[in-house]
């Protein structure tokens, strides 16, 4: 049963990444692209945590319920979680900067359409 849980999370995460990529490739509005990025980021983060998931265990926080000796079979992998924390913060930092840049860019070109931002090419 836990395999169904496992695979459905993977499916959700992969689906989010793909939808996000699709959005990045096809949307025109700069904020919409930023949203698509956020979606893809969320998917990737899910995948990361998913990669450290072990069934039937608890969070990697040692409290009274876990004995020090049996800890290796009691908690999930902490490293992916640590990485996701970093990734979330980075994601929001990039998103903030992107939104600011996007806002100023669209005020400059008079439109939030990325197709208008191709003065530089070839």
């Amino acid at each position, binding site marked *: 049963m836990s395999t169904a849980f496992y695979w459905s999370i993977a499916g959700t995460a992969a689906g989010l990444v793909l939808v996000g990529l699709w959005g990045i490739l096809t949307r025109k509005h700069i904020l919409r692209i930023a949203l698509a990025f956020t979606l893809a980021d969320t998917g990737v983060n899910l995948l990361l945590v998913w990669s450290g998931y072990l069934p039937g265990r608890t969070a990697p926080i040692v409290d009274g319920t876990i004995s020090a000796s049996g800890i290796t079979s009691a908690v999930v*992998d902490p490293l992916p979680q640590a990485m996701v924390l970093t990734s979330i913060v980075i994601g929001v930092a990039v998103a903030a900067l992107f939104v600011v840049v996007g806002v*100023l860019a669209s005020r400059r070109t008079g439109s939030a359409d990325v197709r208008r931002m191709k003065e530089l090419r070839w």
Partner: protein
Amino acid sequence: MIRTLTGLIIVLVLGAVAAAVIPEMQMREELQGVGYSYVSRGMDDTGSSNLVTAVIVAYRGLDTLGEVVVLFCASTAVVLILTLYPIGIKASEPSRVVAFTAKVLPAPILLFGVYFIAHSHISPGGGFPGGTVIASVFLLVMLGSSSVPDGRGRLPAIESLAGLSFGLLGFWGIMTVGQFLNNAFLGTGTPGTIVSGGLIPLISIAIGAKVASEFSGVFKAFRNTGGTV
């Protein structure tokens, strides 16, 4: 239309790749690789009962320092850009509901944030969420007042100080045990208590302060441009 379809095709192909690769990633029953070591040695090495915090702050403190720098750079860039190229108008008068909320809520939220930061080594939380929560207090206060709070120099000072202390804590480690950002050279204390985990609480505070001041700076910059936030 063509673009949508092309995008769809690319995405579908990538989906096929994903469909091919995900089944390769069979679920494991046991910890593997470094994960096992973190779990088995984590508490002894770092004295933190929150192993995620142990990894973040102690084992892979360098990543976290980098993460702080990411945030630092992003907020500096945002503030810089919005100062260089100001847009919009000054803040407008807040509605009464907001003003009321802004008076009532800050204290409990602030407490919550401080708790997150201070207990990062024993319970879920940590500098990042804690800092964010504190920053949201700042935001709330800002929304509640008609003028932008004049924190000139204070926010950057906190930012500077927090960043410097993080870095200097790192150097302290080098000078004592030759390992940058080592947290354990002063002893790790009893896991599960507030005063444990070596330097972890200190680093968490530094991170929290930094994150809080940075997000606050960003919000201030946003607020300066006027608008809803």
